[in-house]
Every structure is written in C-alpha cells, then in structure tokens.
C-alpha cells in the first residue's frame, strides 16, 4: 500500500454530508448572550455605515445567490459582498468552527441551518441582531421559524431564509391501482401499508430511512414532543424517550418489523432507483422535496400528488419541519452593521425573498410569500397540475412553534443512527434503543459540563 497518510486524507464525496460535527467550538468563554439590555444602534450610525465603502464575505452553499446579492449592492453601492461557497452544511460548519477557534478567517455573514445555531451561539460565535433592528422583523416570519432563531433571553441570532414543513408526496397511480385512498391518519397509513404490500410485495407504502434522524425529529415535532430544551445557561432538558416518543417507536418499528415498509438509506443510489421504479408509493418529505423529486425521478412525471402528513388524531392538522436555513452574522465581523443589514435584506426585501423561491427553489418562511398568489397558485405538471406550494403553505400554518435545539445536535443526530436507527434497521427492540439514545445524549451533555433534566 502507499502513503497511508495521504490516502487517509482522501475522504470521499459521499462522506461530506456526514462530515463533521456541530456542537459548539472551543474558544474558551461561554457566551450566554444578552442578560444585559441591548442598546439599539442609531439610524444615523446605520446610514453612515451603509455609505462607507465596505467589503463583506458571505458563506453560503446556495447556487447563483449572486443575483440576490446584486439587489443589495444596487441599494447600497458602497457595500460589496463577496459570495463564497464554503461547502454544504457540515463542511461549512467545520470550517467556520475551526476559523472561529483560530480567531481569523471567518466570514461576516454565514448560512446556518436552524438546528445548528445553538452550537455556534454557546461559544459566542454569532452576533445578536437585536441592536440592528431585527426584532421588528418578527411579525414578517411564521412564528415557528422565528422561534428557532430566537435565543433563550430573546436574542435574535439569525434571519430565517427557508423552511421545510413536512408533507406527504404519494404515487396516485399506485394508490388508484390498489384502491387506496391517501391516508388521513397514521392508523389509515398503517392499514394502507399492509394492504399495499400484500397486494404487491415489490412495493412499500413508504421508506423509513435509518441513516439520519431528520424524519424522526420531524415526526417528534408533529407529535408535540419537545425533546431538546435549554433551561438555563448550563442546564438542558433531554426528552427523547418519553411516552409519545415510545408511541412513535412502536408504530414505526412495528411496520418495519412486519416488513410492510422498507428501511433503505435515502439519497443513495438505491433509493433514487427505488423512487424511479415505483418501489416506494409515498415519500414523507419537506416542502423542498417536490422540486427535488421532480428533478431526480423524471420518469415518474405526472404520477405524484401532494398531501399533508397523516395525523395522530383524526381531524387534527399538525406537521413538523425538516431542514431549512438562516443567515447569521459572525461575531468576529469588523462590519457588524453592514453584515446585519445584509442578512436582513437578503431574506426580507420583497424582491430578494421572492427570488430565493424562484431561483434557488427555497420554501419561504415569510408570511408575505406564503400568501402571495403568484407563489401559491403555481401549478406543477409533475404533480398532475396540483398547486404544490399552496398545500405546503397550509401545512406551514400547522407546525408547532415551540420546538428548539441543543448546542450539540451533531452528537445527538449521530447517536440516533447508532441507537434508534440501528434498531429499526436490525429490527430489534426500538423501545430499549430510545432509552439508550436518551442515555447517550445525557452522558455526552454531562461530560460537556451541562446539568441534564429529563
């Protein structure tokens, strides 16, 4: 063999997704943010800063975001924004964390997913945007998106950019063929799963991926579980194995063990083929899913429809969220005013926000767009002419607002794979796996110096 050192460094493409962690960095002092009252920056200071020639660096993995940036630069010609694609999510966070640790090299503005914000705020990596007028934007966003960018003491750590309220994409042709109605409740969903697989053993009602916990977390969210909460600066509550979670576990592990659902890794080659070849009759996904599907399963054009997630209680309407990100300002910025104004402009300027939905296909968190006719009335041929955005706009109203995250979500997510995910894949005791998950999170949190409540 050769050069083991070099060979080892050549990690793979696929691995980037799972590259690196995101529980806080290590730069010493813990910053719990604003117990002190914050003084607003005066409009005069803002005006002055926005007329001073400034260069900002913006890390984002959105393609072609330069178009939106150009709108900002047109309005503020003195400010120039350098867009850098520093990698997708984890790859970017790893760089941001190392740069923060080194004390140089971090950008001014950065794209961060909701669940990873606390990992950066606990080490003092992000700037509280309240002094820059961010609080006034609260009413423009759906409350559950705003809740996720808000700190425990009312800080505004980032501006929401897009969201992923969860729904169900289903194959109308397969449903029709077997006389299945789109399930409205999880009970109907389970019955449909059994019926479908019995009628055609090569088809599963859905695939429950065991390679990440995004869907699991979204389903906890839908079921009203509040698994991750910061109680105080050094106290967290972890509740991933309570009664409701156990109910979820017995439901999903039951169907997987019966063999009427598949448990393949998603976003894998096999999974793409499964979508194309009709192995899965539904995809439980988020509002960004419809477009993704239409580009990766082109063969199935016209066969899909969109519906809300099935419910635990008939007649109720609840959903969870999967994905979505924000624009945050890094604490080390030398131009906090311009950076904060840019983060706000990008996601709230009507033209820029609309562009994010049409050029980058993001699902909007702003109330204005969610009720914008041009946006919600669009019809999609891939979904048989259905108004997909409208369905998800309605779902967006049903996402509970009080879901929060802990500062070490990477550890938590990784532990899920090795406990709950593993038990689903191996068809072993998911109940015990949930307890194990609870326990590994607790152990990690305590090792990091947190007090842990259930």
């Amino acid at each position, binding site marked *: *063999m*050769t050069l*083991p050192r070099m*060979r*080892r460094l*050549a*990690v*793979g*493409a*696929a*691995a980037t*997704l*799972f*590259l*690196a*962690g995101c*529980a*806080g*960095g*290590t730069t*010493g*002092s*813990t910053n719990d943010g604003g117990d002190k009252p914050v003084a607003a920056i005066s409009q005069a200071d803002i005006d002055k800063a926005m007329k001073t020639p400034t260069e900002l660096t913006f890390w984002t993995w959105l393609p072609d975001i330069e178009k939106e940036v150009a709108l900002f630069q047109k309005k503020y010609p003195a400010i120039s924004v350098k867009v850098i694609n520093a990698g997708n999510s984890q790859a970017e966070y*790893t760089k941001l*964390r190392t740069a923060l640790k080194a004390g140089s090299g971090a950008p001014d503005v950065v794209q961060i997913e909701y669940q990873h914000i606390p990992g950066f705020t*606990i*080490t003092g990596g992000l700037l509280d945007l309240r002094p820059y007028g961010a609080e006034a934007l609260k009413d423009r966003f759906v409350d559950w998106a705003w809740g996720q960018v808000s700190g425990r003491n009312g800080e505004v750590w980032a501006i929401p950019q897009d969201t992923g309220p969860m729904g169900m994409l289903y194959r109308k042709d397969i449903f029709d063929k077997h006389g299945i109605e789109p399930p409205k409740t999880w009970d109907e969903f389970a019955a449909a799963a059994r019926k479908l697989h019995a009628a055609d053993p090569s088809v599963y009602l859905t695939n429950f991926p*065991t*390679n*990440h916990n995004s869907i699991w977390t979204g389903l906890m969210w839908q079921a009203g579980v509040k698994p991750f909460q910061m109680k105080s*600066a*050094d106290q967290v509550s972890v509740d991933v194995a309570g009664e409701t979670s156990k109910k979820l576990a017995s439901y999903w592990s039951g169907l997987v063990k019966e063999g009427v659902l598949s448990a*393949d*890794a998603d976003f*894998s*080659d*096999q999974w793409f*083929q*499964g979508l194309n*070849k009709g*192995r899965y009759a539904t995809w439980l996904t988020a509002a960004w899913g419809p477009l993704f599907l239409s580009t990766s399963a082109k063969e199935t054009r016209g066969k899909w429809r969109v519906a809300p997630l099935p419910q635990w209680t008939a007649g109720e309407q609840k959903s969870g969220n999967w994905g979505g990100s924000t624009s945050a300002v890094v604490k080390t910025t030398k131009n906090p005013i311009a950076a904060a104004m840019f983060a706000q402009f990008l996601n709230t300027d009507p033209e820029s926000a609309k562009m994010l939905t049409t050029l980058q296909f993001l699902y909007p968190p702003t109330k204005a767009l969610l009720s914008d006719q041009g946006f919600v009335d669009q019809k999609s041929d891939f979904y048989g002419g259905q108004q997909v955005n409208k369905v998800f706009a309605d779902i967006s109203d049903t996402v509970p607002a009080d879901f929060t995250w802990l*500062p*070490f979500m*990477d*550890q938590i997510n*990784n532990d899920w*794979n*090795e406990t709950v*995910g*593993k038990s*689903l*894949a*191996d068809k072993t005791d998911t109940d015990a796996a949930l307890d194990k998950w609870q326990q590994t999170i607790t152990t*990690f949190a305590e*090792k*990091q*110096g*947190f007090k842990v409540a259930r």
Partner: protein
Amino acid sequence: MSVMTVPPSRRASARRNGVGYLFVAPFLLVFVAMLVAPLAYAGYLSLFREQLIGGVSFSGLDNYIQALSDERLLDGVLRVSRFFLVQVPIMLGLALSFALALDSGMMWLSRVIRLGIFLPYAVPGVIAALMWSYLYGPQFGPITQLAEALGLPAPNLLSSDLMLGSVANIVTWEFTGYNMIILYAALRAIPTELYEAAAVDGAGAWRIAWNVKIPALRPALLMALIFSVIGSFQLFNEPELLQRLAPNVIDSAYTPNMYTYSMAFISQDVNYAAAVSFLLGLVIVVVSYTVQFAVARRRT
C-alpha cells in the same frame, strides 16, 4: 543501514559526512514543520480536556487512561486486527500470484492485463466508493440482480455480517494492482543466473517460482506487508464512505481511526481524539515490529 565502502581517510570522510546534514536538511525542515509540529501540538492537546460549559482544564494522562478502558476503541482495534489477518493475506496472495503469472511469460495480453489490474490505484477513494456503492446496492445493484436472475438468494453486502468483507473487497480492488506492480518489478530484477541454474537442474515453472522467485521476493513482500499493517490499522476511507449507505452497520467507532475522526469532528473532543491517535500509533509500531521480527526469524 547501508554499508559504505571503506573511506580513504577518516578525517576527510568525517568532514564529508557532515555535508550529509545539508542534503537531508530540506526534507527534515519540511518534515518538522508539517508533521512533527502538529504532532507535538496534538500531544500537548491530549493532556487537556475541554467542555462546552467550563472551558479548558489540564487533565494530565486522563485521556489516555480513559482510552485504555474504552470498549468502543478496543472493539475497533479488534475489528481492524481481524481485517488485517484476513484481507492482507488475500490481497498480497493475489498480488503475488498475478506478479508470478505475468513474470512467467506464459500468457497472452500480459501488458494489457497488467495495466488493467493496476488502474484502480489511480482512482481516488471518492470515486471508488461511488462505483462500489452502486455495485453493492441491495435491491437494484447488479450483484443482487445477477443472483436473482440465477435464482440464488441475493447476499446483502451491506449487512453487518458481510460488511467487513465488502470493505475488504474495495481495499483489495484498490491496492492489489499496486502491490502486484511492486512484486513484479522485484521479480524482473532477479538475476538471470539464478533461473538458468535452476533450469539446468531441470526445475519446472512451479518449482522455479517456489524455490527461486518467492524467496527472492522476501524483502519486497516485507515492505508491502509493513505498509499493509499501517493501512489496515489506520483503515478509514472505505468504511467512512460506506457508512452513508449503512450507517447502522458502520458506526462511528467501526475502526479506531474513524473513532478519532468522530471524536474530533462530531463530539468536538480534539483532546481525546489526539490521545487515541497516539495510542493507535503505538499499536501500529508494535505490530509492525512484530511482523518484521517474525519474518526475520523465519529467514534464519
């Protein structure tokens, strides 16, 4: 060390040998800056611990003590030991057979075949994983489809029973050709007289291979073996890439090196990761010397 011819005069030789420092200095300079300094820094970090709440504190050898009783680490070390004991003999056995076959001059198309087998070495691990993950696919992968077409039960190559074998297959695919070339090159350098002598004695191809060629390959095989020790115990890329397809089979402590990686980048525990790395380095040194010692003893 190399044996040098007797120098003309001791003093001149001592002065000249001093020039040796100048020759090795550029390499050592870069080596110190790029490897020793980070190593020393990592060694320093391994003596501390750092918490999200509470910050950095000196912890002496605590990380090392913790690592020695860390069952996940131990499991990983045992797994790569198993890997080493099975995969390396297969890979080097294949490489040796291929090299002997090429050297025998008894085949057609030997140039083309030689290059074809060597080609995977030039393929980045990233791309190798992309290709194999397709071939391994449990429903639509060609291996499964072939088994189904023949009416055989399709093996799930990504299940926990077969995973280590699937990893071993990728490593074998990537590095057999490389080892083959090294061995083949060594074979080509064996002095012709040795063959002629054997041929005169009436030895056939098999006997020449066994009695003349393989003993002559011993140093080349030893080198390949030592690098395989390092490669096996530092196994990382291939399981890391397959983890995406089967994260429940390959956990974050599947191999010791994946464990240090996960500690450094998922658990944000650079300090513990550094300690584990040094312990793993120690294991590799011990195994390498054991292998060398075993080979040397057999020779005498």
